[in-house]
Structure formats: C-alpha cells, structure tokens
C-alpha cells in the first residue's frame, strides 16, 4: 500500500473549491487526486489542511518541523510514503502519477 498525503494551508473547505470563483490550481489538484485514486489500485490518497486537520500537522514530526521553521508558506507539501516529493507547490497530474509509479513499481506488473 502506497500512501500519498497532501498537507495544505488552512482552507475554508477540504478542497478549497467551494467559493464563487474557484482557483484553477485547486480544481486541478482535486480532480487529479480523484483520478489517481481511481487509476492506482493500491494507493491511499488523503489531504490535510491546517484548518480542518490540524492534528495531522501536530502529530507528524517532519511536517511540524518544516512548518515551524518556514511558516505556512512551505505548504503545500506532498508526501509519498515516507518521502517528501514536493514543497511550496502543487504537483501536476503527470508529476503526481510519476511519483506514485516510482513508489509502487509493481503496479504495472
């Protein structure tokens, strides 16, 4: 089981796309995660933002340290299994897919 976790800034809702004029990047990442979840059988994808899931920030030491040192501007952080694959930016669908394939190369076999 591969785990992908996306740590994000405080947002009003879990995806950040509920306002009148949703942010393009947030729409893209939401749908990319949905697609990846459907395409990769053995992958568990979750999102944590500071407003709704603060416990996850407090309990994950590496994330805690990064945010404490750099402030929320270090977010979003993308973690695949135990490896931080991106900081301060959202990955595209292709980049996320590549990161997952690297992590679980047996997928195609």
């Amino acid at each position, binding site marked *: 089981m591969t785990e992908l976790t996306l740590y994000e800034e405080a947002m009003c809702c879990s995806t950040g796309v509920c306002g009148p004029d949703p942010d393009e990047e947030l729409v893209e990442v939401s749908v990319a995660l949905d697609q990846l979840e459907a395409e990769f059988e053995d992958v568990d994808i979750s999102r944590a933002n500071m407003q709704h899931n*603060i416990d996850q920030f407090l309990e994950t030491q590496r994330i805690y340290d990064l945010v404490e040192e750099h402030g929320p501007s270090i977010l979003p952080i993308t973690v695949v299994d135990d490896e931080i694959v991106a900081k301060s930016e959202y990955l595209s669908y292709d980049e996320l897919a590549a990161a997952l394939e690297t992590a679980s190369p047996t997928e195609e076999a």
Partner: protein
Amino acid sequence: MSTTPTDARAVVEPTSDETEFVFFSGKGGVGKSTVSCATATWLADNDYETLLVTTDPAPNLSDIFGQEIGHEVTAIDDIEKLSAIEIDPDTAAEEYRQETIEPMRELLGEDQIETVEEQLNSPCVEEIAAFDNFVDFMDSPEYDVVVFDTAPTGHTIRLMELPSDWNAELEKGGSTCIGPAASMEERKQDYERAIDTLQDDERTSFAFVGKPKDSSIDEIERSASDLSELGIESQLLIINGYLPESVCEDPFFEGKREDEQAVIERARTELDANAMATYPLQPGEIAGLDLLADVGSVLYGGNEAAVDVGTATNVDAETAVDFDSMADAEAVADQLQPGDETRYLFFTGKGGVGKSTIASTAATKLAEAGHETLVITTDPAAHLEDIFGEPVGHEPTSVSQANLDAARIDQEKALEEYRTQVLNHVTEMYEDKEDTQIDVDAAIANVEEELESPCAEEMAALEKFVSYFDEDGYDVVVFDTAPTGHTLRLLELPSDWKGFMDLGSLTKGAAPAKADQYDEVIETMKDPKRSTFAFVMYPEYTPMMEAYRAAADLENQVGIETSLVVANYLLPEEYGDNAFFENRRAQQEKYLGEISDRFDVPMMLAPLRQDEPVGLDELRAFGEEITGLDDITKETEQEVTAS
C-alpha cells in the same frame, strides 16, 4: 381563581422526565418574542426549570424583561426558575473561530495565527457557529423545558434544514465547510440526535405566532408545509393583537375588526393545528412581568383577556410631537429620486412593518414620474405579487404601470444560476489546455459536488444580489429586503467575502474580477448620492430600537449611512375617538419624537389604512398620502412642462 387548562397548555407543558422543547416561529413584529417570554414565564411560574433561548439576530428579550441578558445564560430577576440567553451570531462565530484556532497556536506564530483568523472570517463560519449553538441547546438535561424564540420564518426553516443538509454532507465523507474533521464524527451524532428530537412530537412542540391578517396566515400556511416536509408538525397557533370589540366604535375600526375576526375564523378552519389561542391588542406595549403573566394566563390558563383602557400607558402628553413639522416632503423626495446615475433604494426594517408595501408604493410613484424603475424583493417569504396583483417572477417583468418592472429572488433558481456560472467558469479554464491529462468532466463533477454544500446557497443569494447592480436601463432599483438581521448579513457579505478573497488560500490569486465587482458594489452602497438606505418601522419601542441598532451596525461594519426613515401605521386622527386609541396615539407620538431624535434624517409618514393597498391604483393613491412621494410626480411634471 380556578381556571380551565387550555389546549395550548397541553401543547407547551412538559409531559415526561426528559427535557422538552417549544419553538415559537413567525414573521418578525407579530409578537413572537412577547409570546415566547410569556410562555417561558408561565412555565417557570408553574414550577418547571425553564430556559429561554432567542436565535433572532436582532433580539429584544432584554427590552421585554427590562434587564440585560446577552450572550450568556442569565437568571431572570424575580422569576426563580427562569433563565434566558440571546445568542449573538458575532460572538458565537468568534468563539467558534477561537476553538478552531487554539490547536494551531502550538505550531504557528502570532502573525501566522492572525492570517488564519482572517481566513476564518468566512461568512459560512457564522452560520456554522449559530447552528452549533442551537444544537448545543438541544442537549440541556438540566432544564425541564427549553423555549426557543426563533428568527423570522425563512431563517428558522433554514436552521431546521441544516441538520439534515450537513448530515448528508458528512455521510458523503467530505468535511467541506462544516468544520474541523476531527470533531465531526462527534458532531454528527449530535446532529442526528437533534433531528430525532425535532421530529419527535412528544418532545418538541412547534408554535406559530401571527397577526390577524391574511398575509400573516398565508405565510404561516407556507411555513407549516415546509416544516412538515422536514417531518416537523406544527401544533399550536397563536394569533396576537386583534382589536378588542369594546374599543371599536366607528366604521373604520369596526371594519378592521370584522376583517380580523374573519381571518381568525379562516385560520381556525384552514390551519391544521392541535390548538389555537388568541391575545388582544393592548393600549400599551407588553413589557414587564405583570403583563407577561397576563398573556400567559390568557393563553394557557384559560382566563379572559383584560383590556385595561384607562390606566394602560403613562404617556406624557407633553412629549407629543407635531406631525406636520416633522415631515419634510422635499427632503424625502430628494432621497428617492435618481441623479445622473442609477439610484439604489433599500427598504429595510423588522418583519411586518410594511416594507414591501412602502417599497412598492415608492417604486410605483417613481415610475409614474417617468423614471425607469425596477423593484426587487430579496425576502424569501415575499409577497410582491399580492401587492401588485400581478405575477412577479425571478426575472424582472413588467407590471401594468409604465416604466415599472418587478422581480423576486427565487432561492432555488438563484442557486441553479450560481452553479451554472461556477461550472462554466471551470469549463473555460480548460478550453485552451488541449494537452492536459485532466479529465475535464471529472473536474466539473468534482466542483459540482462541492457546490452541494449548504454555503453555496448563501453565495448564490449574494451573487444574485450583486448582479442587480449591473442591470442596465434602470434609473432606480428599489430593494424590498428581508427582515433586518438577515438583510444585514446580506449587505455585509460583499465586504466579508472581499476581505476573505484578498487573503488567498481559498482563491489563491484567482478571481480579481470578482473581488473588483464586490468592491464596486460596496462603493455604490456607501455612496449617499447613489444609494439610499431607508429603515421602515412603526412608532413603538421594539421596531424603533431594532432599526436603530441595525442602522448602527450597518454604519460600523460596512460604512453605510441611513438616509431616510419611514414611520408606518400611524393611527389616523379622525378615527378611534376613545381612551384606548388616545393612549395608543399618544404612545405613537412619543416614539415619533424619539425616532426623529435618534435618526437625524428625513422622515416619511404613512398612515394606517383600513386595508393594505393592493394593485396599482391603490398604490398610487397611497403614494399621494405619503409625504414626499406625491411631490416626486408633481416636481417631475413641472420640470417636463418647463423644458
């Protein structure tokens, strides 16, 4: 004195060991708070531990009991078993924000906390917070009975729907706008319990309070059917403020009384309530424990209502004011007429003060004077079509008066429009991105799902409201707004969301156009040359104070100044020649004086009529009577002739 227990008593009196709940709903200004206070007092006097909760954003329990209450549970003086609280949405929201932020303090510095705090200024937070408060009071084992004095009808029904809406959200597994996911599972159980209790007629009684007027009964009928769709049945109907027979001694008041009695009869036969009770109009205002006890003894004790005409009020004749000296026709007309740019007129005030009629009358007169005019109601319980006697829909349509269009915001259609607009926006994002790996349909479906959130409704109403500032071709746009508390929220929303958008995260650099549009609307509303805010009230303490507080809020929070007041339902001098009406008239004069002291703006005076004006002819005639409006037509005619 032995009394017969009434049917109403059987509805409100607790029957089990579990806490029971009594909800009072109805339009603002029908005496809902008075009846709630009287009921809570009666229950406490009958030895039940009682808590009285008001969820009305413009509460007046403090005025009725004559003591400060506020956002904390407060013991009521001289009534041993009674406590009360006025839930303040702002304070509730602040408490909620602090609870959410507290765990972040460990990780973030003061500056960063401040940013998050501002992000949490989302308008949805207020709704969530008020709702959480409400659910908390549904779990109060220390009381035998909890009496809810709820906000005006439309709002209350929203509140009742929320547990189901939000529960559905939770079922889907998303945390969306509702709150910290960690605490959600627990809340979910609370919500489910609240829904069960609301639907259990052994534990929850639902009462409507209305005036003896057809429009009041119509609204109760609609609300009762909305509630019934939620599985909540109304059990008690209270009609408040009918004219006592003994004081109606001339054709004007005899006629009014006959109409009222016919309405009461209609309510008795048409509405499906287990019990009904009535309370007469009193010569003075109902405040203080003695009068509350009288209301309780009539509604629940089965006593005859006493209308003590002689000693009812101690209004000092010296404070009486001269009507004519107060009405400055020219100044009123100045506030209504358009200048070079479109003028936006907002008629607001407590429910039941006659906003729709005054707004429609002003719109009719302005149209008659040759100004292209649009009148819109934002009140979900609006009845513009009853007033014009013509269909009024979601899109502006012409009514028979030349230059006049009317519309009403249909919440469901507004929501549909909003969804379409957001989804189109998402589709456009992908139009010039042929190489994308993203499934566009999936992206749209994703956003669509997010739009199921209850906050979307509020956003939709706001978007529709803002869109009227872009309507071309009108010289005047007249807004007949929902009751005060709700309207204040709507008017504050552009500012709230603007601040929210400037901050990012939700919109991360997106939506500059949207933010600019909100900016423009805020600027327009703040510019006295383009916008006129008129508070409608009748000259009594509660409507006046509610308007006064709302006007102060509007100024402090949005920077909008009130520029006109309308005093409605003034008792005509030529009728009601007896001590009862003398008393009421003297009381009105006293408050007219206070209104003109408190609001230093032109005042429009409107008399009580035997019937509310219906149809264009009556609206025109009514317009001639209301100071200022008649002059609009004349002035313009003169200008036209002169040129």
